[in-house]
């Protein structure tokens, strides 16, 4: 192990960590915001609401995120109208394309998680709310979502960790995230072991932080479902 080279590259890794976190937060927040209404639609008994959402999640969950990223980053550039439209300002940037691809990907998985949690809601919970005279809208906001979103937490923590690892694909489209930092260190010093093991340690630390944060969230919001001692 050449610790001098690692030490020298640490600033690179820290700025890479920042890039990774930015990508992660933007895609998780964006994905979750869209997944909420989609999840409610997906759980709806009306086929015209749930089937199109199912189609979306099936296609996204059935194809690799790398393909989705390449489709957005390289694929859209094929079209003349795209290159001449005002959106091109965004779509020519690797940053925007990576965030969009990651957000769309996590959105599909999160939609299924939320829909699953909604469907697993006890029918009695909703019947009780209705019989108390709440409107459907009130039941949705006051009973269904608070209860379902809490129960979605454990599955969502898995998804967030998968997304943290997924952001490593950003290095393939020229962004210098944690993996990109490792690749840059490798090409600078030709020390692949040091470069990628360091990145691995960083990712492991981030994973543990995420796991800890979600455990704290579960203790805050899911305490009522913990097995009694």
């Amino acid at each position, binding site marked *: 192990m050449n610790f001098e080279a690692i030490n020298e590259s640490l600033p690179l890794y820290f700025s890479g960590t920042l890039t990774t976190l930015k990508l992660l937060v933007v895609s998780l927040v964006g994905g979750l915001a869209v997944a909420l209404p989609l999840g409610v639609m997906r759980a709806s008994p009306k086929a015209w609401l749930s089937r199109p959402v199912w189609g979306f999640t099936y296609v996204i*969950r059935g194809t690799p995120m790398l*393909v989705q990223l*390449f489709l957005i980053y390289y694929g859209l550039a094929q079209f003349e109208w795209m290159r001449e439209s005002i959106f091109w300002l965004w779509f020519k940037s690797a940053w925007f394309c990576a965030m969009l691809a990651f957000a769309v990907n996590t959105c599909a998985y999160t939609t299924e998680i939320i829909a699953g949690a909604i469907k697993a809601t006890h029918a009695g919970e909703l019947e009780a709310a209705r019989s108390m005279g709440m409107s459907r809208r009130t039941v949705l906001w006051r009973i269904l979502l608070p209860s379902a979103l809490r129960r979605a937490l454990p599955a969502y923590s898995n998804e967030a960790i998968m997304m943290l690892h997924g952001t490593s694909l950003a290095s393939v489209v020229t962004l210098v995230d944690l*993996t990109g930092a490792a690749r840059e260190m*490798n090409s600078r010093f030709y020390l*692949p*072991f040091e470069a*990628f093991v360091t990145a691995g340690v960083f990712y*492991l630390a981030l994973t543990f932080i995420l796991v800890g944060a979600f455990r704290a969230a579960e203790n805050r919001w899911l305490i009522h479902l913990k097995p009694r001692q």
Partner: protein
Amino acid sequence: MLHDFLPNILSGMVITLSVGIASLLMALLLGLAGAAAKLSKSRWLVGIATLYTTVIRGVPDLVLMLLIFYGGQTLLNDLAPRLGFADAININPFVAGVMTIGFIFGAYLTETFRGAIMAIPAGQREAGIAYGMSTVQVFARITLPQLVRFALPGFQNNWLVLVKSTALVSVIGLDDMMFRAGLAAGATREPFIFYTAAAILYLAITTVSILLLQMVGKRYSIGVKAAQL
């Protein structure tokens, strides 16, 4: 344009599937060994297996793949002269891909198998031993058939994620489906068409996998009453 390159991409699909199946075999072996180790009484085995599953599941596939491909290469370059090889040994991307993906999904399957084995009541194993079966017979006749049943849903998930991660081996230069779609995209300047073709083929693989595994699931849950509300 598309039909000129389609045979080429389809033969890339064969490579994608070979990588997937070869790494699945390796992952199955590692997963069974890992689950056995985690459920064993030896504290050492439990510790090693826990370290394995924690570290592997905490680091992105891409980083592990780059580590094994580039890091393994420098290791071999150092070792080759000492072992008496005159020429350097080159790691081929197929082997690196299979080793990495097999190693990663061995960790995920360890958890899947561990959960499945724990779902089998201990009394059944004890009853088998009380009837005079050897431990091998108990495993083959009592544990394994039920293990398949309990592990199938988790296994299906692991396999679908595995197939999609094989797209990453294109990053280290294996000419799989993704790589060939990229070449065709570059040659024709029609990336959208070729990445869409790749996406459709991946979707076909996942769809066929789901259908096949559903049939296997039916076969292995014969005699089990489905719970209904």
